[in-house]
């Protein structure tokens, strides 16, 4: 019983991490209509940035924030210099993100080597906390708190601010949003950069749990894809619920059917695709 409870706690923490990763993915998909195949690479890039910053003596949290900002700047560059050149050609944009993901992976391999690097847990969150008689790693609780804080902040941004209203308008109907004077192309840069930054930040936050290694990008990208297919694109609630579901599927799948963990992970996605192609909370079919 305790094992299951701890597994459930881990699943929620992993779901929180996935939310940080996939919220941006979902927004980019909702607004720009492209599955950003560099998203896993941005996660990995952020984690490697964090490793370098921490090794230069920076604390964990400043490193995480700086890495997020660095990846956000990189994302803005990618959007302005590459994706902007292919307006309206979504397929070409996807292929560019795919090409970029190979380049990023190779650069990371060159820069940081092929060995897994673990990021030390920040000292204030080391050890275990007791909740209802169960020992649970404090850091994972911290990840849950961070995810909830970010979810609230993103919700506030999208629902309560002018920028958020513009983004929602762009997601719902880009053509009409343009007609009423919203500069949708600038929103593209903002959202892509925001999503990239979140992914980079998540990379550092995930570091103490997952560590950083070549191939991390390929491990995370499918998870983000599944979250968005399950939850529906462009929906914050969708990516939150989707992340939790995937967190549970992934952890319980690993524990119960280690050889078929991937099948356990992807089967619900396939069921959703057949039964409800727009995802649980999606408004338009992808």
């Amino acid at each position, binding site marked *: 019983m305790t094992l299951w409870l701890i597994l459930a706690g881990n699943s929620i923490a992993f779901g929180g991490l996935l939310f940080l990763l996939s919220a941006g993915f979902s927004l980019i998909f909702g607004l720009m209509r492209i599955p950003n195949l560099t998203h896993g690479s941005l996660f990995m890039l952020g984690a490697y940035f964090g490793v370098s910053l921490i090794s230069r003596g920076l604390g964990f949290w400043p490193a995480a924030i700086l890495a997020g900002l660095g990846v956000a700047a990189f994302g803005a560059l990618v959007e302005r210099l590459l994706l902007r050149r292919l307006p309206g050609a979504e397929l070409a944009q996807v292929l560019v993100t795919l090409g970029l993901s190979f*380049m990023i992976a*190779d650069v990371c391999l060159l820069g940081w080597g092929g060995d897994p690097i673990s990021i030390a847990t920040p000292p204030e969150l080391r050890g275990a906390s007791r909740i209802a008689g169960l020992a649970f790693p404090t850091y994972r609780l911290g990840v849950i708190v961070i995810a909830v804080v970010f979810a609230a902040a993103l919700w506030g941004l999208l629902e309560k601010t002018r920028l958020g209203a513009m983004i929602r308008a762009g997601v719902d109907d880009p053509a009409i949003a343009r007609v009423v004077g919203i500069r949708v192309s600038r929103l593209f840069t903002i959202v892509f950069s925001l999503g990239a930054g979140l992914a980079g930040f998540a990379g550092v936050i995930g570091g103490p749990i997952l560590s950083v290694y070549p191939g991390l990008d390929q491990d995370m990208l499918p998870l983000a894809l599944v979250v968005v297919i399950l939850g529906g694109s462009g929906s914050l609630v969708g990516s939150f619920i989707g992340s939790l579901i995937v967190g549970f599927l992934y952890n319980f799948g690993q524990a119960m059917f280690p*050889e*078929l963990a*991937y099948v356990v992970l992807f089967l619900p996605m396939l069921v959703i695709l057949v039964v409800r192609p727009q995802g649980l909370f999606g408004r338009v079919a992808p």
Partner: protein
Amino acid sequence: MKRLALALSLVALATLPLWVGNSYYVNIGSQILLYAIFALGLNVLVGYAGLVSLGHAGLFGIAAYAGALAINHGANHFVAIIAALAATIAAAAVFAVLALRGTGLGFVMITVAIGQIVWGVAYRWISITNGDNGVAITTRPRPFGLSLTDAPNFYWATLIVFLLAVTVIAIFSASPFGASLRGTRDQPRRMTALGYHIWLIRFLAFLFSGLWTGVAGMLFLYYNQFISPQAVALGASAEVLLMVISGGTGTLLGPIVGAALVVIMKNVASAYIERWNFVLGAIFVAIVIFMPEGIVPGLARLARWCLAKLRPQVTEVSGAAAPRPESGL
């Protein structure tokens, strides 16, 4: 002129092992041919149906794994090949039913996800697939008692399968079914209005594409006598898609040229630099941004333009268009 070029390139292809000599280069020729079959199969979807699949390495891998497992369980090669192709077509049917829930980017995303499942199974289901270590086979088939163990013989066998694939796909694309498939790509609504069953047409195209992907997968297995999850990964799907797109989608020659380009680049590049993935990604980005139509249509346009410039002076120079098919080597 076109016939002459075709005949010349056929002769060149058939005699390649004789004038190349070195078995290293003959093996590269075999690789190009087997990847060309793979790219031609994917092109049925990408080019003619307008459906971009990023999960085809999954089908490729299913064929190779099914073949390898059948052989290692004592099946003879004929049975193994049939079993592998049957498994691939069955898998393609499942892929198609799921992926055709979406079109456009939905289709891309679903194929990525399914491809990753296949990869995950190949990588994790160690009791069946031997995980990261892959599955090896010890023999190549001996059709009509001919051994395929040396490079030239294997090359010729691959060439025969390749020519069969080109012929069948050429007939396919010229057939009324091929025309209706292109119709579903360009004018799905009009095709529906005309009474065509778009879903069924796309489904059958997917199976047809899967068949050739499976054939290529079996050739890959026999070429390497080994299959590992690496051949199933997203990178492999991207590589074959790069072949189709760089060569030119929706043409017969494009995927062949693209396959030659990528295989040669890969072998040349990996001889000089370690960073093949970086080069692959960079070419991908460059081609999508600067030459979105692909090399073959791009060169064809260039050749037409040159011809139009040259025609008033010398008619002989129209042979300048001939190098195109030759570059398929």
